[in-house]
């Protein structure tokens, strides 16, 4: 069974159907990039995986665990908030706008969840946090508040914060979209390394070169459905579907004539 197994996921906001039956399988250690125009539902789908949005139909399993519901003899029971929180501990998430806690230093941001959620002793949590900061190249900024860090540095701290919970799966929601162009590279480098270390990742992104190099599977979404999925050399370099072709050529022309 794949680590993430989503079947026929549907979701509406006020009668506006954003997801119209998404199927997705992600194996352990795989990197999947979700591409598509804005409004295609890729971010919503990502948020459904860790229950930041509740789904209207279909099922999502992460590591053989049904997300958000308990299945007892075919009848679904909504999980309590506490149980949903427990499921989320296994899944790290990185947001477009970083969402670091501004009243805590970089180090405190990372220590917060392991100590508060898992009850890890402060000392070991701090030691691991320092290792993680070192890994994202920010050990020297451990006492800086988020406001004193650049966008790229904040996003790297946010990645370290998610990793501190030792998740099985990492979700990235357009992690470089809010960054100045010259800061995109440092965040992608951290993500690339994470992929090399074997982390299972689902990445919503517009960074085609990242998708091409790092992704095992690229999923192109449009209008709430998966239009095309496969290895990047097929989907990005040789798209079969006209909607994928149109999207990619639009993206390319934007890149060439910004």
């Amino acid at each position, binding site marked *: 069974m794949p680590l993430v197994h989503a079947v026929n996921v549907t979701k509406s906001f006020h009668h506006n159907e954003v997801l119209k039956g998404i199927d997705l399988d992600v194996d352990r250690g795989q990197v999947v990039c979700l591409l598509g125009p804005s409004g295609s539902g890729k971010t919503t789908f990502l948020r459904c995986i*860790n229950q*930041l949005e509740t789904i209207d139909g279909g099922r999502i399993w992460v590591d053989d665990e049904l997300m958000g519901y308990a299945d007892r003899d075919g009848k679904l029971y909504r999980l309590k908030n506490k149980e949903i*929180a427990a499921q*989320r501990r296994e899944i790290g998430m990185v947001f477009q706008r970083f*969402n670091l806690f501004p*009243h*805590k230093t970089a180090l405190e941001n990372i220590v*917060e969840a392991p100590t508060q959620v898992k009850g890890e002793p402060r000392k070991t949590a701090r030691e691991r946090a320092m290792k993680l900061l070192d890994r994202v190249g920010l050990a020297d900024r451990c006492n800086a508040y988020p406001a004193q860090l650049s966008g790229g540095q904040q996003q790297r701290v946010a990645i370290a914060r*998610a990793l501190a919970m030792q998740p099985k799966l990492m979700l990235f929601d357009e992690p470089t979209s809010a960054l100045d162009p010259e800061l995109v590279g440092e965040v992608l480098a951290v993500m690339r390394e994470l992929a090399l270390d074997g982390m299972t990742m689902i990445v919503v992104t517009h960074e085609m070169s990242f998708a091409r190099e790092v992704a095992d599977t690229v999923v192109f979404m449009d209008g709430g459905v998966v239009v095309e999925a496969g290895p990047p050399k097929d989907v990005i370099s040789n798209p079969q579907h006209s909607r994928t072709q149109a999207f990619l050529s639009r993206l390319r022309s934007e890149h060439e004539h910004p």
Partner: protein
Amino acid sequence: MSTEAEARPADAAPERPGAINAVPVRHPGRWVAIVVIVVLVAMLVHLLVTNKAFDWKFVFEAMNQQPVINGFLKGTLLVTVLSMIVGVGGGVLLAVMRLSDNPILSGVAWVFTWFFRSIPRYILLFTMGTLGILFPQGIAFGVPFDWKIIDWLGMSGDWRFFTLDANQVFTGLVAGVIGLGLSEAAYMAEIARAGIMSVDPGQAEAAEALGMSRGKVMRRVVLPQAMRVIVPPTGNETIAMLKDTSLLLAVPVIGELFYQLQSIGSNFYKTFPIAVAATLFYLLATSVLMVGQYFLERHFGRGFGNKAPRAARPAGAGGA
């Protein structure tokens, strides 16, 4: 950068302009204002020193009386502190209830706020002082409607654990603190709600994505950030509360500062110096509170901008 340097013509002005030494804008209005203010201050000082009605000796003697000092320490400062503890704690609780998904909690918070914001504090305190009449047999803690249940089961006795004398609860400082605290909680609830809503929803989302429980998200992430917005108006509320302790007379609490001062004043037929003495006490207490507010704001402002927030300057003294 280098192209810019090359683009500059080499044979342009040989002397490059140096530091600017321009004539600053003149502000004659400021000098006029200074003169006017100096004259006004001189007049005030003259009035304070020479006018016999102030009777400074009597003012300081009155301020130094033990009942007056007790009135200040207990009736004013202690009641302010206790009422604000009840008010801030209750207000934050009410705000969290009001914003909760649970319609019952949210409804209860709304009704509480509606009720206590509707009653003038003077009348509330007066009512608190008379509530003892509702419970001639005291306030018992035990099983609700126990006499009905016992009767229905055909048993006898009671299921009450202990009983408070209502006439002692609803009197003096206790009644004052309960009344002022509950009233304050209603106002603080709105301030706390505004603070909570000012926090970026992405913060709660990030905390939830880390697997934090709802309570932890509120306590560890949302409230500390909301405090930045909550503290300044709370300083205002505290100063207003300081002054509202003078309403304790309605309960009545005779250990209150102004009541004590007035009784001295009426003994010696000196009304005006008493008003001056009360003013001095309240000026002193408010100044101390403003210093406290400065440090609170600095604490909760950490992480927002690189420098500490500027000194607190609560606009006006707040509406008491």
